[in-house]
């Protein structure tokens, strides 16, 4: 694969809901085999950005290229094929509550007819173990799990089919610090071992530095800063510094309403 072609390339991506402009011309390149951390205030459009790339939300204008192929102008089959290479952890888990946990995890494998049900069950237990869940969790229903456990099942489901691209929408929110670090390690591992490209949204700066090679900050629908994740705490950009240090005073004014 040519390293000069970014894995994901966004140009001028815009999306508004009604009169509300959520994405206002996003330009972003993500190199193959790297992981990009996206930070930004609540409601700044991070989840919408991922959903646009996944094709769950149609952007108004702009281009989305994966491996140099323009997704929005591809035929349907090609799009579906490209998208089946992306694994996604949704912010709220989005587990199928009518299926047991193991079937959730193995869903992608079964849908692609890559293995029998017995094999899928075994594979699911294996992936569940990787995210620190006991094998008996596999036979429970998602509604019987705690929020953090659901998050880990969501993570297991996203990585089970070993996709080429991984999206994580707040992978460690709601986990205790140790489990958070384990999950971060797992994400790093996936990226390094499988050679996947990852995009992770997070509010946790420690986790951002652990998983990210690069970081970008989204503010009011635009990328206001991007650079190496190690620089996150001292970027020299007043907006990013205010955000990463969690200061009340600064260029970003929170709109608080009573």
């Amino acid at each position: 694969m040519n390293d000069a072609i970014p894995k994901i390339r966004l140009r001028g991506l815009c999306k508004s809901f009604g009169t509300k402009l959520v994405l206002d011309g996003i330009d972003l390149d993500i190199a193959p085999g790297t992981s990009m951390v996206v930070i930004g205030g609540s409601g700044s459009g991070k989840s919408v950005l991922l959903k646009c790339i996944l094709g769950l939300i149609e952007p108004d204008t702009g281009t989305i290229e994966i491996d140099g192929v323009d997704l929005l102008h591809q035929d349907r089959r090609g799009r579906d094929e490209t998208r089946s290479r992306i694994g996604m952890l949704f912010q709220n888990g989005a587990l199928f509550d009518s299926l047991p946990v193991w079937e959730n995890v193995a869903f992608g494998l079964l849908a692609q007819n890559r293995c029998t049900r017995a094999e899928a069950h075994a594979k699911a237990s294996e992936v569940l173990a990787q995210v620190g869940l006991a094998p008996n969790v596999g036979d429970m229903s998602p509604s019987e799990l705690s929020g953090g456990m659901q998050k880990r099942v969501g993570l297991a489901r996203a990585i089970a089919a070993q996709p080429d691209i991984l999206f994580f929408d707040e992978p460690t929110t709601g986990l205790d610090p140790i489990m958070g670090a384990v999950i971060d390690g797992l994400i790093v591992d996936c990226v390094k071992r499988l050679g996947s490209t990852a995009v992770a949204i997070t509010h946790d700066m420690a986790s951002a530095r652990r998983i990210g090679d690069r970081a970008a900050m989204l503010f009011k629908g635009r990328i206001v800063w991007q650079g190496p994740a190690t620089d996150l705490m001292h970027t020299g950009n007043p907006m990013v510094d205010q955000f990463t240090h969690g200061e009340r005073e600064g260029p970003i004014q929170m709109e608080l309403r009573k």
Partner: protein
Amino acid sequence: MNGLLDAMALIGRTLFGACLAAGRLVLFAISGISHVVRPPFYGRMFLRAFIEIGYFSLPVVALTAVFTGMVLALQSSTGLSRFSADSAVASLVVLSVTRELGPVLAGLMVAGRVGAAIAAEIGTMRVTDQIDALSTLSTNPMKYLVAPRLLAGLIALPLLVVVADILGVLGGFIIATVKLGFNSELYLANTLNFIQTDDVVSGLAKAAVFGVLITLMGCYQGYNSKGGAQGVGAATTSAVVAASVLILAFDYVLTELFFAR
């Protein structure tokens, strides 16, 4: 002048909105039905929907049918005995049940039970991103969620109506023989004399259409619900109301088609 323009604009917008909604529903239906006949097929989902619609609706449909048959026998006997046409009771019961009341009442009961459940389930999946999650896992949600339910409705409703027909006639038979003192052999002979294949078949055809309507409205409303728990609640209500109205409207259209020759 301005008021008039405003009123016209409002009417225009309402009409436009209604056409748009109808168009969307038709497109949704076409897409859903086209997925019924194209692989991959989700047998498990079909089976689940079939059991939910067919098997678990049996008690409700059965009770409705028995009582309807009983009421029909009672009502017609009090109305008809004045003309000493007691034998007409048997024919009236069997014709009303097979042609009209079996399919329509079963349809309405199932709409309340199943239409609501489908809309609530798919609606919850929508607002919790589960439908989005399906498409990221190489699964077309129309194929996985909608098509199996449409097919299950199409097959399960006629089967339910067969049961409803039998029990409706049985209800009438019980009242006629036990309470009204009809001769049971004569009543049965009359019933069998009057019933024709057309009556039963037309009733079952109606049922199949109703089955699709019920599941279609449940899926459509659920699939397009937004705005959390409240949105799902609204979708559930709309699904039941729309399915019930459509059942009665299509009942008229189909009756016209079958019998107005």
